[in-house]
């Protein structure tokens, strides 16, 4: 079917964009910012089946991000600006005489301005059988889907051709899919473009430690195929053969300039549409090229997103100037080259390079620190006069944000102090306050420190999200967010803005700060804390319903370490607990309670099932299987709780903490023991974990699950910490959430042994408990804390803060001090005193609590609640 749009009779000039990738989308935003979407008709031809998405984060698709999560195109944006977007309809020809573009569907669009943003295609070396079944490239969501499907169906081993940035990322992804992974790199080291020999060695060591096989200095000569035509291996240039079921080519990219070639535009010798400093093609002022398809004025094709964004802004500015009839181009933005700084997290290893990383400038010197054992390599390139010119960081790129911003200037401290580890004369914490205003803090969006300060001072932004929105800083790769948030806080404070991070009206401190106070000063009394550390006006008072349970929870989670009583209802702590914790049961709408005994991992014997049935029958309780793989009994009056629990404890049950902000359940699937697919004993692991973390008080409830294989029947990826078995051990996911705002968990670490898994969860949970806000689930916490998942991984896996030992010992103290709250309660007559409906009539039940039958069980008698619910006109106020 062909549609022909009218070419003539245009009322508004038309801008046609070919290619809706990352740079194309940025170009549309730049047009909108300049008001050009209002004055022009904007038509976009998009080859892929979906609008622009975050290609940089492509690999996160394998760890659960969906195509929607990756989308860069806000659905409202296209409509709001009246942009005509044709998805799945690539441009096929351009007629520069007639000024028309014809798309595959037959659509013909006339243009006044044409912008090419067609990106690159992966280069596949011309080796025999390169197109065999089982050979892939790594560029689009469709590529990933195809790899995933093939890996699931018929591969156990995968090889990546190319050990550059993308190759490593692809190899990591294959490993994540459960394949034995190889990397074949022609150059003598990994990531030859970004790092030098020393950096390559540090990287190699770390990557091999992760179980990937690296073959450097060898080329791929032929893909070997079996009888069915599918890949079985590859022949290498050293004569050896590598057996593999799947091959991913990642041997570099080439600009997609065919469209430009076909319509006679100039292209470079090695490809790329030749453009000038305004991103205009040479020879046709109406045609622009931006992003990876463009050969920039400095003779280079940039394969990174940040330079592409700068080109998008440049082209939009030039188009705006043309539209305004400007004749003089001086003063307009221009693109004359860009910084190739990158910071990457590859397979959990930080790799960063910035400025003149390879030291090409005359007369420059290297300052190098290297510790191959720890996989660390840091090099700074310094000019004779002390100017920082560039550098490479492998294994620890903490200083990247600051160092990059100092590039081109003389840093205020000696360079070795910036790379040496603590204890050896460094590292000096170079605060962002030392940065000059011109320093580029966010290189993805080219935002300077001055602009960020301006967002606070002139645009009255008071939070990091506001500044991100206002300046775009931090919305690209995210590597600058830490420096960004330090700058924002510093600027707010400098402006005398009171940033009230206080927990509530009683404390100016955040939950995290209170935690630190309680831990450091071993505070075991809420009142002491309030009277000594509370807000002036709150001291001596009774606190409030927000800080009391918060502090109660902090004291409880630190109890064994600070010397407080572990029993949550002991002494003064009793007054701090929410009603559910106070009665160790969940309050229901009519004032009755529900009871949830712990059933670790969801595994239960017939005898115990019978006990639950008998108890429920004898006390007339409503029973229901919960969403957490256990059984809830509803409708108990407060005075019945101890009687019911006496029977449950006797039968070997203990509190399930359904009431606490603490560990709820660790769900399991049946796993290896019974299931034909299971690869580990998921039930045993779930039980072990549930018993280990039971009773742990935390900022919000904690949930977990363990699945026996990648089919994920236990839904581990929706849990605060979820575990999925692999043939080599366990993969640990964190930050998942069901509920109102579901979040897929992120992969924290892979192929862990039992001991490694437990150690990592210990650290993760204790770090969360220490730093999260009140009622902040791990999901929101992970999204809020500066540096996000990467930071958490640095802390709990790489021990970047040096606190892991402490975290582990805090957890060990919790585990050894655990006692069942209900067993303690029923054995202590004094504690039982509170379980009465009336202090002056202990045996009288609350008359408001009544039940009526439904489906052979009970339900609350609601009419009882409505009698006299309107407030009585009170007796005389005092």
């Amino acid at each position, binding site marked *: 079917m062909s549609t022909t749009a009218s070419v003539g009779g245009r009322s508004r000039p038309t801008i046609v964009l070919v290619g809706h990738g990352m740079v194309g989308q940025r170009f549309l935003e730049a047009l909108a910012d300049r008001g050009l979407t209002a004055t022009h008709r904007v038509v976009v031809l998009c080859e892929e089946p979906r609008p622009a998405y975050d290609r940089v984060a492509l690999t996160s698709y394998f760890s659960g991000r969906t195509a929607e999560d990756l989308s860069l195109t806000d659905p409202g944006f296209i409509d709001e600006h009246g942009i005509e977007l044709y998805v799945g309809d690539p441009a096929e020809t351009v007629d520069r005489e007639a000024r028309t573009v014809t798309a595959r569907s037959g659509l013909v669009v006339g243009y006044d301005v044409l912008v090419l943003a067609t990106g690159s295609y992966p280069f596949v070396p011309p080796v025999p059988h390169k197109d065999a079944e089982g050979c892939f490239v790594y560029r689009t969501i469709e590529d990933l889907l195809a790899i995933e499907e093939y890996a699931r169906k018929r591969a156990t081993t995968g090889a990546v051709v190319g050990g550059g940035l993308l190759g490593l990322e692809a190899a990591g992804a294959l490993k994540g899919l459960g394949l034995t992974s190889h990397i074949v790199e022609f150059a003598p080291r990994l990531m030859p473009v970004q790092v030098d020999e020393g950096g390559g060695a540090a990287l190699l060591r770390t990557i091999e430690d992760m179980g990937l096989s690296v073959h450097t200095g060898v080329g791929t000569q032929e893909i070997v195929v079996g009888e069915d035509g599918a890949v079985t291996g590859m022949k290498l240039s050293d004569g050896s053969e590598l057996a593999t079921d799947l091959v991913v080519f990642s041997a570099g990219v080439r600009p997609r300039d065919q469209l430009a070639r076909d319509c006679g535009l100039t292209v470079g010798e090695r490809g790329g549409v030749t453009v000038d400093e305004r991103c205009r093609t040479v020879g046709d002022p109406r045609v622009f090229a931006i992003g990876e398809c463009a050969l920039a004025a400095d003779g280079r094709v940039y394969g990174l997103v940040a330079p592409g964004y700068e080109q998008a802004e440049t082209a939009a500015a030039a188009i705006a100037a043309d539209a305004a009839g400007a004749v003089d181009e001086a003063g307009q933005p221009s693109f004359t080259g860009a910084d190739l700084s990158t910071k990457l997290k590859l397979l959990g290893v930080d790799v960063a390079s910035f400025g003149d990383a390879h030291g090409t400038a005359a007369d420059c010197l290297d300052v190098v620190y290297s510790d191959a054992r720890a996989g660390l390599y840091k090099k700074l390139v310094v000019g004779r006069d002390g100017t920082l010119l560039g550098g490479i960081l492998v294994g620890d790129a903490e200083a990247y944000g600051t160092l990059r911003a100092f590039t081109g200037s003389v840093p205020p401290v000696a360079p070795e102090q910036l790379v040496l580890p603590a204890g050896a004369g460094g590292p000096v914490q170079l605060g962002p306050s030392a940065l000059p205003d011109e320093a580029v803090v966010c290189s993805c969006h080219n935002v300077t420190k001055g602009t960020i300060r301006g967002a606070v001072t002139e645009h009255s932004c008071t939070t990091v999200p506001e500044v991100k929105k206002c300046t775009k800083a931090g919305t690209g790769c995210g590597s600058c967010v830490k420096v960004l948030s330090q700058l924002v806080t510093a600027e707010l404070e400098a402006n005398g803005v009171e940033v009230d991070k206080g927990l509530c*009206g*009683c404390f100016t401190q955040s939950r995290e700060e209170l935690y630190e106070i309680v831990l450091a000063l071993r505070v075991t009394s809420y*009142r002491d804390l309030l009277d000594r550390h509370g807000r002036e*006006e*709150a001291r001596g*008072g*009774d*606190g*409030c*319903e927000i800080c*009391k*349970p918060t502090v109660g929870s902090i004291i409880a989670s630190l109890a064994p370490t600070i010397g407080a009583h572990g029993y949550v209802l002991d*002494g*003064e702590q*009793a*007054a*701090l607990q*929410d*009603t*559910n914790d*106070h*009665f160790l049961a969940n*309050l229901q*709408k*009519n*004032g009755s309670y529900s009871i949830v005994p712990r059933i670790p991992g969801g595994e239960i014997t017939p005898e115990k099932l019978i006990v639950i049935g008998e108890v429920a029958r004898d006390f007339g309780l409503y029973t229901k299987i919960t969403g957490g793989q256990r059984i809830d009994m509803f409708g108990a009056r407060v005075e019945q709780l101890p009687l019911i629990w006496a029977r449950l404890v006797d039968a070997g049950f203990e509190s399930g903490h359904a009431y606490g902000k603490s560990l709820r359940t660790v769900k399991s699937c049946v796993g290896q023991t019974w299931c034909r697919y299971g690869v580990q004993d998921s039930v045993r692991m779930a039980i072990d974990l549930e018993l280990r973390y039971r009773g742990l008080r935390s900022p919000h409830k904690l949930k977990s699950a363990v699945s026996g294989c990648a089919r994920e029947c236990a839904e581990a990826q929706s849990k605060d910490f979820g575990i999925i078995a692999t043939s080599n051990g366990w993969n640990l996911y964190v930050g998942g959430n069901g509920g109102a705002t579901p979040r897929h968990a992120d992969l924290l670490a892979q192929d862990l042994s039992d001991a490694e898994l437990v150690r990592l969860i210990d650290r993760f949970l204790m770090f969360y408990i220490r730093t999260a806000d009140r009622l902040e689930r791990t999901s929101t916490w992970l999204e809020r804390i500066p540096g996000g998942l990467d930071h958490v991984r640095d802390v709990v896996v790489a021990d970047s803060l040096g606190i892991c030992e402490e975290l582990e010992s805090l957890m060990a103290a919790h585990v050894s001090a655990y006692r069942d709250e209900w067993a303690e309660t029923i054995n202590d007559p004094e504690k039982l*005193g*509170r379980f009465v*409906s*009336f*202090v*002056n*009539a202990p045996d*009288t039940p*609350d*008359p*408001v*609590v009544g039940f009526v039958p439904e489906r052979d069980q009970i339900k609350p008698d609601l009419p*009882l*609640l*409505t*009698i*006299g*619910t*309107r*407030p*009585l*006109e*009170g*007796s*005389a*106020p*005092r």
Partner: protein
Amino acid sequence: MTLAPETTALKVRLRLADSWFAVCDLTALTPGRGMAALLPDGRQVALFRDRSGALYGIDNRDPFSGAAVLSRGLTGTHRGRPFVASPLLKQRFDLLTGQCLDDETVRVATYEVQAG
């Protein structure tokens, strides 16, 4: 929290129309927590004791849900005045006036309480 010996024998008393009704020993009230008491006419009162020792009594019914649970809420101080937050939906009530701090149209009954 240790109680001074002379207070241990004290009774918590509640003022009804024209008499004082003895409810329980003062020691039965934990500072910062409440307890429910049943009145002869079937009404329920939530009794509280704050950290300074002051006593308060309000109707135990939570007017928003109808459940008799206010005695099980958390107490606190708001702008220098004592309050309890309902354990069900967290609305706060001034312990001296019974006024709901989160909905000015709602108020619960209050009682005069003393230890003696």
